[in-house]
């Protein structure tokens, strides 16, 4: 969802609007918001959809923005602190959200929350990430300086993607048997370290 500066909104006002929304309509709203919560820089609703929502919920643009922002904010906080569904419901009722809406938040969170947390964990940014591993095993028979080789050589292809880029950069590296063995042994050491973390 498109993030603005943390709005200095009055949560009371938002709660009033949310409470007024029909339960079924709100259910669809909250489902869509939580689905798109993990996406960076993407609008939850298109401009067109927002227009339609304004009409359907009888809210002007400002009010609708407030409702969407607040709903998203509540869910983000729930994710951040990994709040239990029951606690979430209680806290929302404490700020005077109607029990039916509070329960809806709680149910949606219980159902979709864990999946959202997983998505966010996998989305942790890094300047460049390894996305693709490919390889080819060749038998080198000769080269300009060497006849009658018969030496196996492996080509490793690593597909790297920069954060916020669709383009994958390919890195190719050549290994003979000994070099590949050394590389593998290092990977085994890394694995050992990873195992010691769990």
């Amino acid at each position: 969802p498109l993030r603005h500066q943390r709005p200095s909104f009055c949560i009371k006002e938002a709660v009033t609007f949310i409470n007024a929304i029909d339960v079924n309509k709100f259910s669809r709203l909250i489902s869509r918001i939580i689905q798109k919560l993990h996406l960076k820089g993407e609008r939850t609703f298109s401009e067109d959809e927002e227009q339609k929502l304004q009409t359907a919920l009888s809210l002007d643009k400002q009010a609708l923005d407030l409702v969407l922002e607040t709903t998203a904010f509540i869910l983000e906080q729930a994710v951040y602190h990994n709040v239990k569904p029951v606690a979430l419901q209680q806290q929302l009722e404490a700020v005077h959200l109607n029990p039916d809406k509070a329960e809806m938040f709680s149910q949606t969170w219980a159902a979709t929350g864990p999946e959202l947390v997983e998505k966010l964990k996998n989305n942790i940014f890094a300047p460049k990430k390894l996305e693709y591993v490919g390889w080819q095993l060749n038998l080198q028979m000769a080269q300009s300086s060497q006849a009658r080789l018969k030496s196996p050589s492996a080509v490793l292809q690593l597909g790297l993607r920069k954060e916020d880029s669709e383009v994958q950069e390919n890195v190719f590296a050549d290994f003979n048997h000994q070099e590949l063995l050394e590389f593998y042994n290092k990977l085994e050491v890394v694995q050992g370290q990873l195992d010691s973390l769990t």
Partner: protein
Amino acid sequence: MSSSHAKDFSFWGGRIPPEIESMSKNLKDVDQELFRKLMKAVVSSLEGKDCVSLMKSIAESTTIPQDRLGHIVAGMHRVLSEAIRIPPSSLKQEAFKENLRELRIPEDFISDFSSVVFGNRRSALETATSTNDPHLPALQDFKWRVDVAISTSSLSRALRSSVLMQMKLSDGSFHCFEVPLSKFQELRYNTALILKEMNDLEKRSILQIQD
């Protein structure tokens, strides 16, 4: 029928390369000291070093004209390059010497050639000449780090581990990137798989045939 047809093969392949032929014709009046100086320069050049000044000083130290020296040096270069190409298991020292005897190269000079081709400087020469061959970059330096993301702006308790890799390749390129756990497993699995395939390949009979 020339006597070379009676042999299994000559290390230079089919016809006698012109450089080698002209070298053998220009070795008259060349003493061993001069021969060895020239050989040293040629080996140096094969190792990739610059030997212009070395050649100049050799040319100045002798009365033998430069173009004759040129023929000798070109022939030496050819003899050594061709001989080093062939693995020692295929080209034995005696066969190499026999080939050179056919060209009527003096025995002392043959020994000098032989000591380069079959001596302990050979592997250095092989490494030096192979750097000119086309190849993909090799992994020169590999560093890694295991990271654990404790919290992020979205999750106060993320606790997600990942591997950070830093690779320097032989072409000078440098790559630093994160490897998510699942990708790391994929990389490790595939590397093991290639190693297994390499082992299987090396055991197969085609590689056991000696030629």
